[in-house]
């Protein structure tokens, strides 16, 4: 009896979900468990099936196969309104002919909720989102950020367990986007609802998510917390997708040198001291070394380890930091250094790899070793 209570409930569970439009398979055998109160981000480039998955959870698309559970209830055949979800769309989707107040209360009026209850809930949502002064206005009289706030409010008044966001910030300009991003995070911290958030913006994903699911052609590539995704990408796709500027990839092979396994590319060897491998590194294997720009150290940043010499190819000062493109061992790799440190093009620098943060990928399977 007591055991049953202690089981941590899943908020949303997806079992073997498949969806095909005719012969085009968008989702295939997808499984996903989202914990209660979790902020899950579905990340991927356009056409990877992330919005399709969200629409399936919302009940706006019928899956070809599989099941969807919300709060341990099988909702696969339920109508969207009966699933206990609220949804926010990229284009806001506010009803243009209704005032903000009517927009917020539309769902409740359809459900024939008593009037004073409607007023109470609208006032609460408007208070949380600070849109009280806008209640009498029409959507056309609002700015983009205000519209998106109203759209979030429409999900809020419905008092649901799960919030679904379909690229809610993509239509906003950069400044508003970062402001609303912070507000969304604050909202999640105070409401503690389950939130599923679709985006193609990796910054949004990394900043908002408890866990990120990176998708590619209908398959989840990796489901992990942002730090793990960033530092321990499971395969080369995830490694290249996350991070800007993106990870340096050096194709080469594993070799044996002085009793140790090293990485060799174009005749230059790199020591792999400090690398945490999940399987034995056998010499002769074709691999790709991946290193993020901030995990390659230059000159005074070097804290020991094997030191190489490289030539500055291009310098890109970006304010807070400075991006150097260095030529070494027949490759050009980007390195992030402090914004105050400047180098002349063509000058020689010393560089060292932080192998504890690097990744080795099998050249064939592209899986991390």
């Amino acid at each position, binding site marked *: 009896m007591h055991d049953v209570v202690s089981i941590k409930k899943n908020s949303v569970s997806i079992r073997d979900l498949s969806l095909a439009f005719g012969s085009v398979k968008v989702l295939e055998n997808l499984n996903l468990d989202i914990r209660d109160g979790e902020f899950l981000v579905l990340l991927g480039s356009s056409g990877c099936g992330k919005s399709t998955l969200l629409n399936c959870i919302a009940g706006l698309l019928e899956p070809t196969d599989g099941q969807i559970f919300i709060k341990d209830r099988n909702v696969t055949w339920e109508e969207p309104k009966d699933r206990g979800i609220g949804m926010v769309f990229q284009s806001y989707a506010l009803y243009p002919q209704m005032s903000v107040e009517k927009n917020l209360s539309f769902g409740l009026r*359809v459900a024939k909720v008593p009037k004073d209850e409607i007023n109470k809930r609208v006032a609460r949502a408007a208070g949380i989102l600070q849109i009280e002064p806008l209640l009498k206005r029409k959507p056309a009289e609002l700015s983009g950020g205000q519209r998106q706030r109203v759209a979030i409010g429409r999900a809020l008044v419905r008092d649901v367990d799960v919030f679904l966001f379909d690229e809610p910030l993509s239509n906003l300009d950069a400044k508003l986007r970062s402001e609303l991003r912070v507000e969304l995070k604050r909202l999640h911290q105070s409401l503690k609802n389950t939130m599923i958030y679709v985006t193609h913006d990796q910054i949004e994903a990394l900043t908002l998510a408890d866990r990120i699911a990176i998708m590619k052609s209908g398959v989840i590539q990796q489901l992990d917390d942002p730090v793990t995704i960033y530092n321990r990408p499971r395969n080369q796709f995830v490694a290249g997708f996350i991070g800007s500027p993106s990870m340096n990839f050096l194709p080469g092979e594993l070799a044996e040198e002085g009793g140790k396994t090293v990485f060799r590319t174009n005749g230059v060897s790199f020591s792999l001291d400090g690398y945490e491998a999940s399987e034995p590194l056998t010499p002769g294997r074709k691999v790709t070394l991946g290193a993020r720009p901030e995990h390659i150290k230059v000159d005074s940043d070097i804290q020991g380890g094997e030191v190489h010499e490289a030539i500055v190819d291009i310098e890109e000062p970006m304010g807070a930091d400075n991006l150097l493109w260095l030529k070494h061992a027949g490759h050009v790799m980007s390195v992030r250094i402090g914004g105050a440190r400047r180098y002349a093009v063509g000058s020689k620098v010393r560089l060292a790899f932080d192998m504890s943060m690097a990744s080795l990928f099998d050249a064939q399977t592209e899986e991390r070793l």
Partner: protein
Amino acid sequence: MANISTLNTAAAGFDAVSDQVATGPRGRKPRRTFSPRNIMLYGTLIVAALYYLLPLYVMVVTSLKGMPEVRMGNIFSPPMEITFEPWVKAWAEACTGLNCDGLSRGFWNSVRILIPSVVVSIAVASVSGYALANWRFKGSELFFSILIIGAFIPYQVMLYPVVIALREIGVYGTLTGLVIVHTIFGMPILTLLFRNYFASLPVELFKAARIDGAGFWQIYFRIMLPMALPIFVVAMILQVTGIWNDFLFGVVFTRPDVYPMTVQLNNIVNSVQGVKEYNVNMAATLLTGAVPLIVYFVSGRLFVRGIAAGAVKG
């Protein structure tokens, strides 16, 4: 010294520029009112307008003349003595066959045909257009294709089958029969119009309404209908002018006592008994054409807006 002189020439050059800044072109480029371009443009427009207005002018002046003046044959001259006698006669006294109560009978017949046909056809077409755009069902695309083909089949092909069908259900020759025919034949083009309009509205609105729990009719009445006013005006104008101007269906599917106005007009103008009363004919034609003309003048602006509305993101 050399330095100073270059400085001076530089300064002189700067002065020249600043002179130009003070006196040179500034602001909007002036355009002459009587440029060759304007003369061509407005000349063509005026000629075209006159070409189309001339027959109307002839009709109006002729309808205001008495028969003696008409017989003089100066069709362009304004009436020497204005009389409304032909208008009264056309409306209330002109004979068609057995009846001699003028066009008024046809006018009221047309109104009784027009109102139910327009209302029913628009109501049905807007709902089916909405369903085809937002509630895709198995075979909805095929259904839509068939509907579009229907819009391109000439009516004449279907006349006889429709006559038989109306006879079988017992409404041949009645106003009801004609209303049914108009409603059905307006359907393809109207459904196409509404479907494309609803399909142009952002699909997220529909999704949001579904999540808010609204059903088929609630979404239609509370979300879609208020956004579709421009297209309703377009549909209304198309149907009013189309049905009012119809002659073929009216003459085929009705009997003389329920002939619509156009058929009656034809019978007045083409009747060959005694004198041809040109002034009465002109007045009768103007009366018949008045309804579509008024509809165009009143709602022309809305019409253009509705036609363009599909292209603009709303």
